[in-house]
């Protein structure tokens, strides 16, 4: 290997005074070192270029064309983006994705944090382990299965949820048959699915909080709630940022759960951004227009990720 970490021997440079700084010759070695680093990175860079950068670049190009996948793309300039501005279907999908995100992200974050805190502080035993495992099962379950099971549970006339509500005198609710309730229900099922994943992240973060802090605060008379607000929550700030950002990105990318539970209905009331992209590209065969939608999604996700980096880099 060319890679080397050997330092360059100090040699007197002609013309340099003994008392002055000795100018060494590190440049060639530095270049060699950086090239060797590039060699190590190259496989990853190639993979990134092929599976991420190139598709984004191609999508950006196709977004400027009229393209159906079967024919040759025809240059259309910014027309697709102009059309998006007046596309009520796209605006509806954007709004519904936003509402879905606003419901699911805060809820899954808070619930995961609270449950993780209870398990970490009060239930470090087999029962706590059981709860963690039980809540993690939905994370690994297939979305299509989850969608089918919840469709069954939320059945209007003979679903388990309405049967239970009927016991306390609440009339049948058409959960998936009304646009408003369908979107809320899908967001809540998402919370149920994601909570186990974020709980594990929070739990791992809590194990890193020094026990001394809790012991010292106990001596000062702080109770569990006070410890949660004054020690746990501040200590987990970076983890919370991660959970919120990941949750937000996932929410903007939601597709399969909605597809399995409502198919975007009723009346388009649960069509999300990715579903709109899918329908436009694969069913309506307007790949150029779908690419423009995808670029908008890309910009949103990029901005969310960028915000995360900025916020996490702050001391």
């Amino acid at each position, binding site marked *: 290997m060319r890679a080397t970490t050997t330092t360059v021997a100090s040699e007197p440079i002609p013309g340099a005074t003994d008392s002055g700084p000795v100018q060494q010759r590190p440049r060639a070695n530095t270049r060699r070192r950086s090239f060797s680093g590039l060699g190590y990175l190259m496989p990853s860079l190639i993979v990134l270029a092929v599976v991420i950068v190139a598709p984004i670049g191609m999508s950006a190009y196709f977004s400027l064309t009229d393209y159906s996948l079967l024919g040759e793309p025809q240059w259309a300039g910014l027309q697709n983006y102009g059309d998006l501005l007046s596309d009520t279907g796209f605006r509806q999908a954007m709004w519904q994705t936003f509402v879905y995100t606003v419901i699911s992200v805060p809820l899954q974050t808070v619930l995961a944090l609270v449950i993780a805190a209870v398990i970490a502080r009060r239930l470090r035993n087999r029962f706590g382990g059981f709860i963690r495992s039980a809540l993690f099962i939905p994370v690994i379950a297939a979305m299509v299965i989850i969608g089918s099971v919840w469709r069954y549970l939320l059945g209007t006339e003979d679903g388990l949820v309405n049967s239970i509500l009927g016991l306390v005198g609440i009339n049948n609710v058409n959960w998936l048959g009304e646009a408003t309730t369908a979107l809320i229900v899908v967001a809540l099922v998402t919370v149920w699915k994601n909570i186990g994943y974020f709980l594990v992240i929070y739990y791992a973060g809590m194990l890193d909080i020094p026990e001394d802090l809790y012991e010292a605060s106990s001596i000062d008379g702080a109770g569990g709630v006070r410890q949660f607000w004054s020690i746990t929550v501040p200590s987990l700030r970076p983890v919370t940022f991660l959970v919120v950002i990941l949750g937000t990105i996932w929410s903007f990318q939601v597709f399969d759960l909605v597809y399995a539970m409502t198919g975007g209905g*009723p009346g388009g009331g649960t069509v999300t951004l990715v579903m709109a992209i899918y329908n436009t590209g694969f069913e309506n*065969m307007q790949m150029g227009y779908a690419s423009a939608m995808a670029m908008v999604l890309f910009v949103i996700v990029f901005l969310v990720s960028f915000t995360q980096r900025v916020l996490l880099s702050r001391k």
Partner: protein
Amino acid sequence: MKRTRPIVLGAALTSVTLVAACAGAGEDTEVSSLDLWLPPHGDFSNASEWDPILAAFEEEHGIDVNVRMIPWENYEEAYLTGITGGEGPDVGLMYAEMIGDYHAQGALVPFDEYLPNSDAPDYLYLDQGQVDGEQIAVPLVVGGARVLYYNADLLAQAGIEEPPGTWDEFLEAGRQLRDAGITPAEQAWSGHPGILNDNFYPMLWQAGGELFTEDGSATAFNSPEGVAAAEFLWELRDSEILSEAVTSLVQGDVQSNFANGQTAFMFGSDAHFPTFDAGDFELGLIGPLEGETRETFIAADALVLLEQCPDRQLCTDLVTYITSPDQMAEFHELAPYPPITAGAEYVAPQIFEEMYAQSDLFNGLPIVAGSSAVYNTLLTNLQQMMLGEKTPEQALADAATSGDQALETAQQ
């Protein structure tokens, strides 16, 4: 020495390239295999089940026919990505919504030039595969007619002696059932636009309406006939003949509720007959209801010849071979559809034989570029009508506006 090495290498490379090119040219003249893409039908669900059907053709022509079974889920996606990636079929089965788009994009080759040179059987439904007088597709599976089933026991409970035959009689029977505390009917209004085959198109045609103008350049459902069909649907919903829950039901829900004897009427495909007939109640069949006409939907999935086929005559021969009565007889053993050619044996449930003999009862979806987008927007707007968010007139007008725009885009 240094100069001769590149020259020798160059000469060798050129020789190898020329040899390879010659070999390639030789292979072009002889097709060794064809790719055939099909979906599962009935109990015919594995590619290997086509082996005995195709064996004689493979032997006669000395080629392999590679059958790829494409699941119905993401069917269009598989074709689109396969063909774009150069891995598509030479011959494949498409439905009308797909055929229109692929034809408009120049991905399909008409059969006209090649069919006369084939030993083609006497087809019954060739018109279902024609666009502007060209034979773009050859129907393979024509069936799945949408009919109205009823549970005779529940009708008797409600004091209904004669099953309804017209829209008005159906509404009256529905009210009687509702008043007797029986669920009159259910429809699936959640899911893919395919549900409109059950829920809307038959009513549109029964009202005397059409989906598209004759040249396929614009929608035609926003008409007095279309509004009458939409109003009939709304009347079913508004008078609680259809429950509020229909907006959340998928086809599986509706079918299982009917099979379990919980619903008096069900609009559905003839393919469900064996399941319903095995139910613990007396099953009745009305066929299509009568409005202005008695027409109903029929599926007409057809074989198409893709642009990439290396030998179009051979591909057409494959199509005529598959659709010939002997091969179809084997196919229909596991997928009992009515015959597609004259003289072929009828193997579908006998109760439908007389109905299938009346070809004027049936409409397939027309082959129109951009029709998928039209059906998507029609479904969304009709769902909004069933939710009570739009009147029948508003729903059809909005669907027509979006639909016409989609057709214009697709047909540019």
